[in-house]
């Protein structure tokens, strides 16, 4: 496939990245080169090959349901760009709860 400017704009929106109009073309060209490079994977027959998500053959790692100390609230909020005594503050969340 050939990566288009429209693809790049859509992806930027999904990734919450702002691209200025002037940057759309060069960004598209650069990403297209990389996409072209990774497309050599098309040459590898992979039918019936189980995808590998983990480098380890480990499963069922579980933790007992025991409480551990939480952070002190001031520590939890310590890196917040904007906060009050209790909460993080962000620009208004319109609409709905997820």
């Amino acid at each position, binding site marked *: 496939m050939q990566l288009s400017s429209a693809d790049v704009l859509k992806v930027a929106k*999904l990734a919450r990245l702002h691209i200025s109009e002037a940057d759309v073309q060069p960004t598209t060209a650069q990403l297209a080169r990389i996409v072209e490079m990774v497309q050599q994977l098309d040459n590898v027959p992979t039918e019936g090959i189980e995808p590998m998500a983990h480098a380890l053959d480990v499963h069922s790692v579980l933790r007992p349901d*025991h409480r*551990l100390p939480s952070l002190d609230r001031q520590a939890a909020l310590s890196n917040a760009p904007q906060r009050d005594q209790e909460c993080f503050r*962000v620009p208004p969340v319109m609409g709905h*709860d997820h």
Partner: protein
Amino acid sequence: MTVDAYRQVIGLEVHVQLSTQTKLFCGCSTIFGQPPNTQVCPVCLGLPGSLPVLNQHATQLAIKTGLALNCQIAATTKWDRKNYFYPDLPKGYQISQFDQPICYEGFLDFADPNDEKALRRVRIIRAHLEEDAGKSMHDEAAGRADSRIDLNRTGTPLLEIVSYPDMHSPDEAKGYLTELKLLLTYLGVSDCNMQEGSLRVDANVNLHIESAGRTIATPIVEVKNMNSFRAVERALVYEVDRQFAEWKKTGREKGQAPKQTRGWDDVTGVTLPQREKEESSDYRYFPDPDLVPLKIEKSQIESASNALPQLPSQLRAWLQTEHGLKPYDADVIVSQGSHLVEYFQTAVAAGAPAKRISSWIQQDVLRALKERGIEISALPVPATKLASLVNAIESGEIDTSRAKEVFYFWMENPSSDLVAARSALGISSVDRGEIEEVCRQLLDENPQVVAQVLEGNAKGLGSLIGLAKKKNPNADPKLVRELCQQMIESRRTSS
């Protein structure tokens, strides 16, 4: 209202908070209502470098629920990231299960709202585990137009139970939800408190309209923000009408419009479209590399299955077949929860007749619980004591109305026994001869009643019972009626 017949098609997605001590992937407490941001750690804050570790108990509760919903339990299940941006989702993704849910393909039976004796079956597509998001609170106080974020709830384990679109009326949806909630309560996997958000319902609704010889499906709408079963019912009723009117107006069918999300407004009683970004459905699910797959052994499923408690449907059947209760009565008892069923069971085991216990529970016990606002475990009259009282009635030692006095006396004086209650209330067993004497006097004093009865009007006997009680409070009304009738009859024959 119209010539076009339609069928409502409703599927429900129910999010249930599981009753664990700690969150799904970290050791923070899940207690509701704590001060904001006091139950958070690097993991649930999504701080850089933190990693999730799965809570074993949450998986056990999910398996238990899945089994009770007649689901298959996955031999291997895994964790996927659902990517989206929202301030109550600090990692920018939710850990969920995409293509290998822990439970799948089950069903739930419940009483058909149109036919008490029949069952309706709703199939379950899947039940998967995921982490809850935090809370965002819009703050317009003091002119501040920003939102405050509390992440205490972030990471609380949720089981999302997704049904097939098998429901065809708001009544059925309510029936399904009521039964599901009861089941979850019996399992003890969730407190199901809708006010606190432990149980949340989204509905997918559309209509299949028969028109001009074909079936037309209207676009599917997801309805959110329903905070009670009543709200679900109202929202569905509204939405069905709205969709029909919409179709009448636009003729738009499923596939001609994207799936819409609408929010229920409980105050105005309408559903309103929620703003959706066009790309918001591209969640870019992929396996979470920080979490390894979970394998569930057959033996584990078997032992979980064996450890399941008696479920509401089984208990209803048992009350009907073993104890001869009517479906309605069995349902009333089962709906009150397993502790009340145990109370019933204990009383019956102590030798009291099941039907009498059932009616005592439905009248006096439930009333007492309601008046005092207590649980059955806190009732001052334990099951064995109630059984002894009922047995005393059965043997004629005490009559029902005086027995009720004893019951309420025991409510106030939990340590007293039947003997103490009787003496405190002045109840003594009366000799049959004594009552015969009372009856004879009454008949002599009330010839008009005798005349009425002889004319075939037995109503007057009631007044005699009241008079007998005045003469002797321990007079058993049943016996008084019986004796009076006999004596009047014998007078007829002798005259």
